């Protein structure tokens, strides 16, 4: 499989009152064409910032300080703004966590979808609107013609997320970045949206970078998965491999904290402590304060992400040195 997107040593920093936050601190990640890759981590682990860095949509105080994002053979990081705009929404689309606030309240949903189509496919207003209606039908919205003329506040949360998906896929992008697409939705709606994404992926052939904190979603959707902690990827493997034999203590902790049906457990595992203060990350391995193993070198040096077992299974922990 050819690589669609390759992130190399990406560093993204935020200047805040009181210091610099290294939100993304040397991330390497590859997304093959048509694959679904999961990016898992707690709030503040840097997974959303990684996605926004790919799209170059960081807030003003955020800056990509180092690294490359290769899309085919173009480095998105150095790209002029105009060329980046051509890629956004056209080759790479993104859907966000909050369907309630991600749509502009003063424009109809049809107009908002059509805007992307008109922009990238250079078609007229009517053609854009027709495409929007077609997309609304594809994402399973009944009476799409009427819905296209409605405003976001007239739609439910699940429907708005469908609209977001319709908007993102309307230009048939090669890569869809989905940042917690189901987190804000009811459980039943979540399942519907995930199913919809799977189906549409088959239809459009887009690769998906799925950002989530929900390992259940990963198991259901992803071919491979990367686990992020404090701005770095700590483990990466195919989904089956990761679930079958997690290597990093953090991944092990995450998996152990999922309640399982049919398996008798004394009590649910809890990872003690909390994510380090982003302004004062401890030296060495960021997970050390919470780590049950505390490998010898981890208090001084940051462990590199290296192959362990197979070439596909990467882990960053000194215990495997």
């Amino acid at each position: 499989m050819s690589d669609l997107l390759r992130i190399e040593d990406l560093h993204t920093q935020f200047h805040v009152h009181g210091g610099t936050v290294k939100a993304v601190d040397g991330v390497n990640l590859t997304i093959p064409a048509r694959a679904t890759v999961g990016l898992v981590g707690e709030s503040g682990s840097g997974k959303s910032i990684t996605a926004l860095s790919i799209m170059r949509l960081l807030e003003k105080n955020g800056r990509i300080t180092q690294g490359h994002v290769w899309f085919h053979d173009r480095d998105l990081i150095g790209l002029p703004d105009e060329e980046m705009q051509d890629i956004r929404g056209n080759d790479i689309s993104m859907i966000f966590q909050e369907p309630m606030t991600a749509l502009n309240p003063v424009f109809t949903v049809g107009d908002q979808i059509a805007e992307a189509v008109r922009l990238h496919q250079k078609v007229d207003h009517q053609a854009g609107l027709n495409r929007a209606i077609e997309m609304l039908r594809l994402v399973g919205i009944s009476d799409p013609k009427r819905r296209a003329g409605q405003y976001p506040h007239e739609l439910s949360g699940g429907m708005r997320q469908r609209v977001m998906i319709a908007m993102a896929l309307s230009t048939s992008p090669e890569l869809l970045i989905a940042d917690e697409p189901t987190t804000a939705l009811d459980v039943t709606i979540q399942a519907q949206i995930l199913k919809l994404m799977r189906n549409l992926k088959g239809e459009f052939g887009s690769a998906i970078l799925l950002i989530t904190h929900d390992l259940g979603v990963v198991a259901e959707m992803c071919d491979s998965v990367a686990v992020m902690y404090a701005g770095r990827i700590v483990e990466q493997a195919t989904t089956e491999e990761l679930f079958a034999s997690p290597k990093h203590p953090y991944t092990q902790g995450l998996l152990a904290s999922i309640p399982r049906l049919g398996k008798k457990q004394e009590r649910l595992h809890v990872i003690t402590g909390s994510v380090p203060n982003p302004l004062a990350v401890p030296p060495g391995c960021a997970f050390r304060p919470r780590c049950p193993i505390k490998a010898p070198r981890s208090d001084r040096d940051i462990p590199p992400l290296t192959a362990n077992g197979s070439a596909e299974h990467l882990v960053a922990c000194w215990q495997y040195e």
Partner: protein
Amino acid sequence: MAQVPPLPIGGATGGLPGAGPGQLSVETTVDQERAIAQPGVKADELAGAPELGFWKLAVIRFLHHRVATGALLILGVIVVAAVVVPIITGNLYSIQDYRHPYKAPFQSFQHLLGTDELGQDELARLLRGARVSLMVGILAVVGYLIIGGGLGALAGYYGGWLDNALMRFTDIIISMPFLLVVIAVTAATGGVRLSTVIIVIAATGWFEIGRLMRAQFLVLREQEFVQAARALGASNTRIILRHILPNALAPIIVSATLGVSGIILLEAALGFLGYSIPPPEPSWGNMLQNFEEYLLSDHTYLVIFPATALVITALAINLVGDGIRDALDPRQR
């Protein structure tokens, strides 16, 4: 009723933009600042530490704000001069030096800022006027706090008809030209005594603080710590005074501070129209009453001094108020 979104200006509880759940907050909270101040100590452990309490932190933050601190110094000088100097100079402001009317400023130490058409010392009158301005400003704001704070708190806490009546009444008064209302009421009550002016301003201007207090109480009465106090059997009075009020204070303090400058300007306008303290007692407003005469006869300093004193004072108070706002709510800005 129209659901008009609140205006973003001066909202005391503006949410942090761009920091939804699951995203890295790019602004630090008080907790984080504490964590920075004392690395290695968790915020929770420090929350009860008196040496870095909310108010102390606020003072520290205020003093770091250079412009606000400078404004506070200027304001301090004005207040001290207004309070102390007239005690020493006595009734100098009303002594008419018939030999020296319209004496130009910076010519002699006897009349440093010159004299007016009656030979009254301009500097002494300015300082005496500052007294009037500050007194009206402070007393009327106290009135705002008593009326607006009290009614706002009750309306926000109990809701119901009181709340409805208050909000509707506020709607009317806020939509009226304040100056006209005050003039009409002052005119109607026939008084140009200072006490009348203060009472009328307080009685017609408390609405903003009333609304603010109501909003604070509406939010706070639903908070867990209030529910907890209620569950423990605390009386309404105790809940209002001990649990909600201290937490509602921050925006009220800011609004009250800014209110003082608003009142000073209003009193000046009233004095200018002859509806505040009458001559010979000087106020910055009534010192400007004869501005046409001064301008036509080229005695511009008699216009410049009181007008500028007014603007500097109002500006200094506003800057201090904004400094307090920033100090109390570091998330703003």
